[in-house]
Structures are given as structure tokens and as C-alpha cells.
């Protein structure tokens, strides 16, 4: 099969997977939050409210399109797409299951295997900022402007510890090999000694915090702050455009969980997820799915339990605590790689 056709099929499958994931993540979140609040959550549309996401989608599509008179029209309309596309595209380098071999044919469960996978993650993650800041700016609304500025400042600030920790993880890929790698697929294929897992898990809380901030999740949902900025950069958006921003946020949550599952918990690896067998991909995807869902649970758990922090605290925490910590972690990792590994 030609690589183009295969890529088209994989891309379509990935987008459908992510959108379904998004739809049921909203359901998952609402149900979970309701449980945390001792409520029932959505239960009217379909059995157990399972059709609720579809009802929401239909509603968004059939809403009146409002483009307020004071906005910068072109940018206003393009911004939600600019926000969503990176969220969809970033998943391309994450392997979701082991290879499937059928006869002479090998099917790989990732869209692209590029040798700069982690760099790609970091790069595309920063592009997402554009959609938000352009959306806020073009809305020509004081709340929206403030919200988007806050978002941009927050996202770029937390990108530093994110990048530093990523560099530290890349460093660990040197251990037991001739050179390190930036490819997520190779990271999964390479065995790690037990002490390295422990060392990596030390960084996991920091990494998780940066992922929370990068996807603007509570307690770092300052961009949205319903009660002071009336939803921040999204304030002038309604209907499907709002839904696209919403989608971008939730898909970036899924992506974040997938990245963490891959880097810290072995991705699709688990008992019976054997590459090359007919059941390997199924079991592997199962493990991957479980890990992602577990991490998503933590996202929502945090949202239900931790109050939103103040904006100055948010930036100071990043610059004064997280950044020095990750630099320290990076330096220690480098020492370990050179002297132990």
C-alpha cells in the first residue's frame, strides 16, 4: 500500500479517535465531577447519559453564528482552527500500540516516525499558543485580551520547565546505548534499568504540573476564570467556535496524558502486549488506553480538589520553583548519565 494512502487512513483514524475521545472525555469529566460533588451527572440522553456528548455536538452545530461587530473578523474566525489543528496534529508521533505483522506487511500504530519526535512535541505545543492569543486579541474585548495575555504568559512560562524536563528525559535515553534519541517509538523500544524508572518518576510530579498548566487546566485555568474574566479569551465566542477551543483544550489533555503515559509509564507496554503477535496490538492499545484514562482521572481529580491559584502565584511558582527544580533535575540527570550510565 502506498505510504500516502496509508497515511491518509491513519490520519482519519487518528482524528476520529481523538474526537471520540474528546466527546467521551467531556462525559467522563462531567460524570466524575458529579461523583466528587455527590451528584449524578448527565443521565437523560441515552442510557446513563451516554448520548450526551452527541447531543452537545448537535446543539453546537445548529447554533446561530454570531460574529460581533467589533471583532477583527478574519483572525476571529481563524483562531479556533489555529487552536484545534495543533492539538490534533501533535498526536502524530505518539505510538498507541505495538506493530502488527501480517505476512510480509507491518502496520505501525503511529502516523509518523520522525527522528525529532520530542522536539516536534515541544514545537507544536507552542504553536497552540497562537490560536489562543489571536482569539483573545481579535475579540477586541478587554476580558478576552487580558485572558489571552494571561494564557500566553502562562503557556510560555511553563514551556521552560517542560522543555528542561524533556531534555532530561532525552538524556536518560543515552543510558545503555551509543547515543540518545528523540523518537518516542525508540524510547519505548529501549529497555530501562529499574533505578532509571524510579529516577524518572521523581520528575513525574513536576512534569504533570507543567502539563496541567500547558493545557490550561485547573488549578491553572487562569485564562478562563469564569468569575473574574467571564471565560477569558473565549468570551466573545459561541457555538461551534467555542466548541473548537473547548475541543483543543480537551484534546491537549488527552495528548498530555498520552505523552506522560509514553514517557513515564511505558506507553502500550504491559503484560501480553507482545509486538508481532496478532493479539499484541489489541492488548497494547488496551494498556495504553488504561494508562491514559488513569492519567485523565488525575486531571479531573485535581480539578475537583484543588482551588485555583492566583495569577502572580502561578507565574512565580513557575519561575521561582519549577524552573530551578527542573534545572537541578537536568544537571543531576546529566551527571548520572555520564558517571553511572
Amino acid at each position, binding site marked *: 500500500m502506498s*505510504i500516502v494512502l496509508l*497515511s*491518509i487512513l491513519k*490520519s482519519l483514524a*487518528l*482524528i476520529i479517535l481523538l474526537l471520540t475521545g474528546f466527546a467521551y472525555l467531556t462525559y467522563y469529566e462531567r460524570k466524575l465531577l458529579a461523583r466528587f460533588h455527590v451528584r449524578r451527572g448527565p443521565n437523560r440522553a441515552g442510557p446513563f447519559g451516554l448520548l450526551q456528548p452527541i447531543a452537545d455536538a448537535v446543539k*453546537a*452545530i*445548529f*447554533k*446561530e*453564528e*454570531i460574529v*460581533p*461587530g*467589533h471583532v477583527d473578523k478574519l483572525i476571529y*474566525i481563524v483562531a*479556533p*482552527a489555529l487552536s*484545534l489543528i495543533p492539538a*490534533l*496534529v501533535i498526536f*502524530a508521533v505518539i505510538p498507541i500500540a505495538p506493530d502488527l505483522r501480517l505476512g510480509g506487511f507491518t502496520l505501525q500504530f503511529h*502516523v*509518523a516516525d*520522525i*527522528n525529532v519526535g*520530542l522536539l516536534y512535541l515541544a514545537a507544536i505545543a507552542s504553536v497552540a499558543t497562537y490560536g489562543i492569543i489571536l482569539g483573545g*486579541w481579535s475579540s*477586541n*474585548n*478587554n476580558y478576552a485580551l487580558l485572558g489571552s495575555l494571561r494564557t*500566553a*504568559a502562562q503557556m*510560555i512560562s511553563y514551556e*521552560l520547565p517542560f*522543555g*528542561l524536563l*524533556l531534555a532530561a528525559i*532525552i*538524556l536518560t535515553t*543515552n543510558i545503555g*546505548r*551509543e*547515543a*540518545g534519541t*528523540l523518537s518516542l517509538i525508540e524510547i519505548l523500544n529501549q529497555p530501562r534499568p529499574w533505578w532509571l524508572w524510579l529516577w524518572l518518576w521523581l520528575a513525574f510530579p513536576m512534569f504533570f504540573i507543567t502539563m496541567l498548566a500547558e493545557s490550561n487546566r485547573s488549578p491553572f485555568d487562569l485564562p478562563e476564570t469564569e468569575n473574574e474574566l*467571564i471565560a477569558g479569551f473565549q468570551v466573545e465566542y459561541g*457555538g*461551534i*467556535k467555542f466548541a*473548537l477551543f473547548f475541543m483543543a483544550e480537551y484534546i491537549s489533555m488527552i495528548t498530555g496524558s498520552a505523552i506522560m503515559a509514553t514517557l513515564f509509564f511505558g506507553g502500550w507496554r504491559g503484560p501480553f502486549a507482545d509486538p508481532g503477535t496478532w493479539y499484541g496490538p489489541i492488548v497494547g492499545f488496551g494498556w495504553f488506553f488504561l494508562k491514559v484514562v488513569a492519567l485523565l482521572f488525575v486531571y479531573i481529580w485535581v480539578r475537583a480538589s484543588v482551588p485555583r491559584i492566583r*495569577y502572580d502565584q502561578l*507565574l*512565580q511558582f513557575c519561575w*521561582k520553583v519549577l524552573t530551578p527544580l527542573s*534545572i537541578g533535575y537536568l544537571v543531576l540527570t546529566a*551527571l548520572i548519565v*555520564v558517571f553511572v*550510565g
Partner: protein
Amino acid sequence: MTSADYLPILILILIAAPFAGIAILLPSVLGPKNPNRMKQEAIESGMIPFADARRRFPVQYYMVAVLFIIFDIEVIFLFPWAVSLNQLKIFGLIEMGVFLGILLIGYLYVWKKGAFEWE
């Protein structure tokens, strides 16, 4: 590794972009259209908007942006170094130590100067 490796990503972008585009255009076909003046106005929590948002904003945002550029470039330099540390060994450690050291002095400086304080 060639640029052909990136072809799937291009294809993914080409598929994702129309999807987002269609999603944005759909409501203008399917949705009702009853525009009125109130809908067109800026939302200011029910108040009548008194100023548009093309105005100056606090300088701290610029500060964060400038600091980000400096440190992000540092991170970008770290990536290739991190990949090849096994070959660079002690030499790599020293070189990166010098590089990080200089940046850390700058970091210490902006910290002490209060660039991270937010009024």
C-alpha cells in the same frame, strides 16, 4: 531519515485543517440567523462597553515574553546536546556547564531584580 518521514505529518495537517474549517463554516449554513444590535456588542457582564481593547497592557507580559525567548533558546540548545551526551562525556558536561552557568547568572540577576514579581 529523510523528509519523506514528514510526509504523514503533512497529510495529517491537510486532513485536520479542512475538518476545522468545515466545522467553523457549518453553523453559518445550518444555524438560524437573527442578528440584532445587542448580540453584536462586546460582552462586559451586562454593562455597556465603554472602551475597546486596543490599548496598552501591563509591561510584565513583555517581561515574561523576553525571558521566555532567552531561556527557550537555552532549552533548544539542550536538545541536541542531550542526544549526544554519550559521545561528548565530560567535555559535554563542562561545555554545557559553562553555557548554563552564564545563563544562570542572568537568571539570578532577573530574579534579584524582581522581574518575576507580579503586582
